[in-house]
């Protein structure tokens, strides 16, 4: 296999992972695991969209990592509940973007970041994550709305509405 084909995508994979995982070391571990898996599975790649293929591998690795930490949500999260770990932040008013992202359910975060950072179409995201396009759209709209509220301070990280 030609690893040189993959190298150009490393910066994008790292950017996405950084936003997805939150911390630098965890993100680079995710990238590293993704690259190693891509090398092992490269014979399965059929010439086509290498980027989508790499992101789908990263998705699988990410899901496995979540499972390993036993924080994978069992059900689709709606915006009133939060299953994501609660960051240790004292301020409940406005969260910085990075922390707000971590308050999104992981599957909403994935969709939102692939669209916002990678400019992926719904079809691309659907392929990369292995979910129907309808699910892509609903996760995206929920994620966007939730992120907006978090940034606006309309909802606290604990999932409780801020009393106006």
């Amino acid at each position, binding site marked *: 296999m030609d*690893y040189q084909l993959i190298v150009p995508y490393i910066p994008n994979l790292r950017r996405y992972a950084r936003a997805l995982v939150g911390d630098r070391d965890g993100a680079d571990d995710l990238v590293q695991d993704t*690259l190693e898996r891509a*090398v092992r599975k490269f014979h399965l790649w059929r010439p086509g969209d290498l980027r989508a293929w790499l992101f789908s591998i990263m998705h699988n690795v990410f899901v496995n990592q979540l499972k390993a930490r036993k924080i994978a949500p069992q059900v689709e999260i709606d915006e009133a509940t939060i299953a994501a770990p609660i960051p240790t932040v004292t301020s409940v008013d406005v969260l910085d973007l990075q922390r707000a992202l971590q308050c999104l359910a992981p599957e909403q975060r994935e969709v939102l970041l692939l669209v916002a950072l990678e400019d992926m179409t719904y079809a691309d995201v659907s392929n990369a994550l292995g979910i129907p396009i309808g699910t892509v759209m609903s996760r995206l709209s929920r994620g966007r709305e939730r992120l*907006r509220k978090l940034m606006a301070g309309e909802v606290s990280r604990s999932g409780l509405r801020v009393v106006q």
Partner: protein
Amino acid sequence: MTEEEDRLEYADQNNALRRQFDSVLTEPIPARMYMKRPAWLDYARAAVLVGVGVAVGFALPMLKPAQPNPAAFVTPLPIRAARAHLVYSPEVRHPVEVDAKEQEHLVKWLSKRLDMQLRVPVLANDGFELLGGRLLPGVDGPVAQFMYQDSTGKRLTLYVTRPHKGDELTAFRFAQEGPVSVFYWVDRDCGYALSGELDRAQLARVASSVYRQLEP
């Protein structure tokens, strides 16, 4: 929120996310990510290469034809005839071994050596008289060459051979080998080639006369 507000809000989100994370794109890539072929992959690759090498080593002798086909390397009849023509036709003192004056002996001798009944075409109507003939080595047996000459000293040779394995049966054909024009044909029993430094049309007239006399 209206749809328009949504759209703006979402564009803002995209921009904010990019501002936040685009710097990662230009961070130096950690060296560990450049690897990153597991060592076993190198060993596996080496093993595969060795395997391929061994397989090729075994396969090559089998791929080689057991017996090189000699027919494939035989010089074609018209070229053999043209070369013989070029060698003997310039001879001034010894153009032939047996002179036309001993034609009966010549034909008997060459027929015996080629193990076939030879006939000598008469080309007087085309302006050529028989000078005589000689025995030549062929690809895998003797060959007869008859030589004719016209009043200007121009010479033709008729090359007669048993067909060799590489000589495919063919009707009347023309070939040009350097200065020499050749008309030739190969039938089941015999191959004939008439060679001369004539142009194609002139030689064709003589050759068709030869053909008529030899292939009744």
